């Protein structure tokens, strides 16, 4: 790898923007550089489903032209990747499903429009768990993604392709979506920074729905600062999304350097004590505790808090998410777009065979569980009950935020696990999201920051903020990243073979 090479993809987005402005290199050069890296390394990682070199170069040239005329947008010329859940006009948008393998979206998601308007370059669409249902990226129709730190391991999910691509520096940053931890968990497992914003902060229009009341798009990048730059573009009210919040978007970069003096951090007692049910490994607990010390050194005060309904989050989620998904995925019926079985003999056959053949096992399981939970005689016991428990979980957080500014804990109970290790038992896989799920149920923002290694694999620190406190989370993350270098660690990539080791 040449020095020049390293300088381009190892720069943060803020540095790339400065260099582009100073004409040290063009966006076209930067884009070609990333495309070459994808070509070289992604065969092994499988982080992209679709690469769009022509469109990327075209966008890069447009960004260079805009820069020359002084009309460049906030992210002009920065090569990004979109999770393949965001609809992109004229480009296949598959949601990693056979069902949408042939779906060329006729429209752009609002988030995609916003990035286009800001001049960002889209390199392609990243791999993910099918319809964002999974925590390992193993349910993709396009095959699993490998963790760049250890290719025997999963990158996490569902935004596993985005996390792996960012960690392997196959894009400057990427988008993700988070329904139960799908930004934060893969960010933790791949050693990058991922922010799940407050529900309603980022438009869901054009983001293929999994569970509408939980889904939220957000940035996945190599630093909190880069996440802030992406949030400045992604966030904001959208009149096409009824659940989008009408509230001004702050400049997320303006508060990054604020002092943490007096910051009150709460540590939920339910999130620690390794050796109990949560499956939290001692190494992760140690890494997280070390980072919390670091935050104390920066002026924060620590307080133990309690989130008493924590253990109900996973069961609550596994009623609400499948219920909503069972209805959201009814539109995939082989009539207007997507997969259709051959020679259906009647309508019922068209539906049931197209859906059986088009959906993967995990998606079908969730549709069945959700259909059951909503069916006559069960809807009160399951769905309504879960919506009530959801409020109890939210109230835990509301009470906690009366006492603290930020809640800290591990993002995941264990580091990246081996491919196939948990895929045989859905319930074990579901427990992977034990720390992330409650945040979605409550609709809160949370960030995962690289915070060390366990077994040579990255560990994530999760910070949960109050509603719309993304700026606070990014501020804490940025200050933390100024005194630590976990986020600067990069995996050693190999063009072929399996020997990828932590640097």
């Amino acid at each position, binding site marked *: 790898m040449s020095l020049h090479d390293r300088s381009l993809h190892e720069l943060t987005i803020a540095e790339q923007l400065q260099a582009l402005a100073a004409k040290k290199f063009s966006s076209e050069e930067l884009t070609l550089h990333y495309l070459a890296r994808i070509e070289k390394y992604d065969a092994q990682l499988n982080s992209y489903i679709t690469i769009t070199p022509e469109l990327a170069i075209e966008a890069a040239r447009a960004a260079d032209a805009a820069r020359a005329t002084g009309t460049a947008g906030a992210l002009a010329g920065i090569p990004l990747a979109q999770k393949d859940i965001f609809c992109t006009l004229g480009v296949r948008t598959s949601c990693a499903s056979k069902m949408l393998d*042939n*779906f*060329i979206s*006729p429209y752009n998601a609002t988030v995609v429009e916003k990035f286009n308007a800001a001049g960002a370059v889209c390199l392609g669409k990243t791999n993910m768990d099918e319809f964002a249902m999974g925590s390992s990226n193993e349910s993709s129709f396009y095959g699993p993604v490998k963790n760049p730190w250890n290719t025997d391991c999963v990158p996490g999910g569902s935004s596993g392709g985005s996390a792996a691509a960012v960690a392997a520096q196959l894009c400057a940053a990427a988008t993700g979506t988070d329904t139960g931890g799908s930004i934060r968990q893969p960010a933790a497992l791949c050693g990058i920074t991922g922010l799940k914003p407050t*529900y*309603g902060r980022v438009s869901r229009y054009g983001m293929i729905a999994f569970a509408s*009341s939980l889904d939220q798009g957000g940035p996945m990048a190599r630093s909190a600062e880069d996440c802030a730059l992406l949030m400045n573009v992604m966030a904001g009210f959208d*009149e096409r999304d*009824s659940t989008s*919040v*009408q509230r001004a978007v702050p400049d997320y970069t303006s508060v990054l350097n604020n002092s943490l003096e007096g910051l009150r951090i709460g540590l939920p007692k339910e999130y620690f004590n390794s050796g109990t049910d949560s499956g939290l490994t001692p190494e992760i607990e140690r890494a997280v505790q070390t980072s919390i010390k670091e935050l104390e050194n920066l002026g924060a005060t620590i307080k133990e808090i309690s989130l008493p309904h924590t*253990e*109900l989050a*996973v*069961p609550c989620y*596994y*009623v609400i998410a499948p219920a909503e998904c*069972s209805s959201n995925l*009814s539109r995939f019926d*082989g*009539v*207007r777009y*997507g*997969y*259709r079985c051959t020679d259906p003999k*009647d*309508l*019922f*056959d068209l539906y*049931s*065979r197209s*859906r*059986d053949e088009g*959906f993967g096992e995990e998606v*079908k*399981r969730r*549709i*069945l*569980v959700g*259909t*059951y939970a909503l*069916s006559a005689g*069960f809807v009160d*016991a*399951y769905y*309504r*009950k*879960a*919506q*009530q*428990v*959801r*409020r*109890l979980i*939210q109230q835990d957080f509301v009470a906690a935020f009366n006492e603290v500014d930020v809640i800290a804990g591990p993002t995941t109970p264990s580091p990246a696990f081996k491919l196939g290790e948990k895929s045989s*038992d*859905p*319930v074990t896989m579901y427990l992977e999201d034990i720390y992330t799920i409650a945040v979605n149920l*409550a*609709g809160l923002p949370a960030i995962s920051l690289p915070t060390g290694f366990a077994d040579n694999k990255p560990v994530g620190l999760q910070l949960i903020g109050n509603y719309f406190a993304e700026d606070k989370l990014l501020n804490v993350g940025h200050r933390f990243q100024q005194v630590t270098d976990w986020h600067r660690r990069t995996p050693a990539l190999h063009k072929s073979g399996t020997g990828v080791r932590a640097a």
Partner: protein
Amino acid sequence: MTIEPADIEKVAKLARIRIDADDLPELTARLGNILAMVDKLQAVDTTGIAPMSNPFDAEQRLRPDAVTEVDQRDALLAIAPKTEQGLFLVPKVIE
């Protein structure tokens, strides 16, 4: 609550997902595990707790009554599996 293969068949029919008879026992076991896990909720006292479907208990925003979409039939039908004369085709609908 335990789930029986017959329940799964009924639910699969409602969800329009074909299931192979061979897969039914394993599927029943897996769904049974998931339902056993979520059954933890039944023990929680939720008397007087309003169900929550939006974190802010927000209200619906209204859209002005204006036509903002143009005809895009050609583009939209181009991605459909089967069309004729501007219509989506499906196996005969019987009323």
